[in-house]
């Protein structure tokens, strides 16, 4: 049995979903770690895009965000927002967009803007490129903590559209199709049902019970007859993460 942390499991799970030669829009943290892990294992030819205008960096130091030049080191190309989110993303060249947020709902819509409280709203980061990434990426991968207030039936604000109101509603309002929305939490992986586009358990992390997921989820979700168990990381993956990719354990 190999020892690993939950964050490592989440990074490995995301990494394995990436395929070689894909173009990925990435943010700081676990998405970045997952992408670098994939580059070092099964997908050496991934292309990394940061919305600020950076393509294919090969960072050797962690930074505080995509505005940190540590994340721009050895890039292939510098451009503008229009260059990344327009020329690459909007043109349809992005296979995977990684997103996070304050809330996600039963149809995969994401909120990174505001929370309704009894006392009015609390305003947070807002969209940045998130809304655009959800509009145009062929696959939307979400990494977030599994909490009742974060996985809900209806988000307080739609910053980024997943399957909108389910079924074909996303295309019906004029948005491009998306092939998948995957949510990776610290308890499980969620995907969306084929027809209704409703949130469903895809796999449950080792050692986690269905009860635990039910207790910590604010949205109703579909449960397959025999839920899969999320595959555990390999020794190679954990060694790469701990010795090479995030040796200071900032994110794993």
């Amino acid at each position: 049995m190999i020892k690993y942390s939950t964050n490592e499991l989440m990074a490995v799970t995301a990494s394995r979903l990436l395929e070689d030669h894909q173009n990925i829009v990435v943010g700081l943290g676990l998405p970045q770690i997952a992408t670098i892990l994939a580059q070092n294992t099964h997908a050496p030819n991934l292309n990394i895009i940061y919305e600020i205008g950076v393509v294919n960096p090969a960072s050797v130091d962690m930074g505080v965000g995509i505005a940190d030049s540590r994340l721009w080191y050895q890039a292939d190309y510098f451009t503008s927002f229009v260059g990344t989110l327009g020329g690459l993303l909007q043109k349809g060249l992005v296979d995977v967009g990684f997103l996070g947020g304050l809330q996600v709902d039963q149809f995969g819509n994401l909120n990174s803007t505001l929370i309704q409280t009894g006392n009015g709203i609390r305003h947070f980061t807002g969209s940045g490129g998130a809304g655009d990434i959800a509009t145009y990426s062929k696959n939307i991968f979400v990494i977030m903590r599994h909490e009742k207030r974060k996985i809900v039936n209806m988000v307080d604000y739609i910053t980024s559209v997943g399957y909108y109101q389910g079924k074909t509603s996303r295309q019906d309002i004029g948005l491009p199709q998306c092939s998948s929305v995957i949510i990776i939490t610290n308890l499980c992986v969620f995907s969306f049902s084929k027809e209704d586009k409703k949130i469903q358990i895809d796999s449950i992390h080792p050692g986690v019970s269905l009860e635990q997921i039910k207790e910590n989820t604010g949205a109703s979700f579909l449960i397959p007859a025999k839920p899969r168990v999320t595959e555990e990381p390999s020794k190679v993956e954990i060694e790469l993460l701990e010795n090479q990719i995030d040796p200071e354990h900032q994110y794993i």
Partner: protein
Amino acid sequence: MSNKVIELTEAVREIPQDGAEIALGGFAITRNPIAFVNEMIRQKKKNITLYEIIGSMDADLLVGANCVNTFIYSGGSLDRFGRLGRVNEAIERNTMKVEEYSGLSISLRFLAGSLGIPFVPTKTLLGTDMLTNLINKRNNAVKVMNSPFLKDDQVVVLKAINPEFAIIHAQIADEKGNIIIEGPKWDIELALSAKKLFVTVEQIVSNKYIKKYPEKVSIPSISTYRVIEVPYGAFPTSVYHCYDYYSNLIKEYARVNGDAVQFNEFLQKYILNLKDHSDFLLKTCTLDELLHLKVDPEYGYPAELGGKQDD
């Protein structure tokens, strides 16, 4: 040869005291035109209509100093240092008008402005609450309509922005206003869309130098209105190839910007009570610390610090 070089205080005096329309070029904690913004705060500009693609420290300072009437942006933060506390509170308490876009949609409005086209169609924003709110506020810059080319195909139409002023910070310009931006150039369409572009730069170089490397010029002199030389003009935010962000001050700022009283103390101490940007540098860090921010040219940041600065 036209010389567009001007002193900072003089340049800021050219911005109207009341109701100016300004686009800022910062991104979170990098290349914010801090020196220019601090001087606007000292000169007590009021009722600004402020645009910024990604809200940053510069905008948060202006909002906190009560200079802003309307803020049009696509969200923002101080990266992992923290939130835009003054912007968020002004939105929560409804003390400032706000229009929120996505990064691409606001950038496309600047792109349209920079190209002199009246509007640009896109699919982004469809289905979002940004779109719902923009339409409900009747801001008259965003509409949903059927594509003129495809039956039953909905598009979002975004009106061009041509702000009265854009203010960006860059590494290099000559006296004519040929500007070299090194690193990613998220602010280029915004800069090119303005009626009057002010640029603060780390260094003014000769036109002869520019003519050696015209391929490096991001913005031609024709598009530039004023050039102001302000070394460390983006401090405490970073400038690629020049200096790193200064963690200590941004951390201090992120601790106080969630609270009006503490923010006002910060504002008095570091901006209002000081006479200029040199004074700001002297009061907020030591010479040793400033020298430590200098980048390793191979990396574009101070590589010996690795992933983090000393606390």
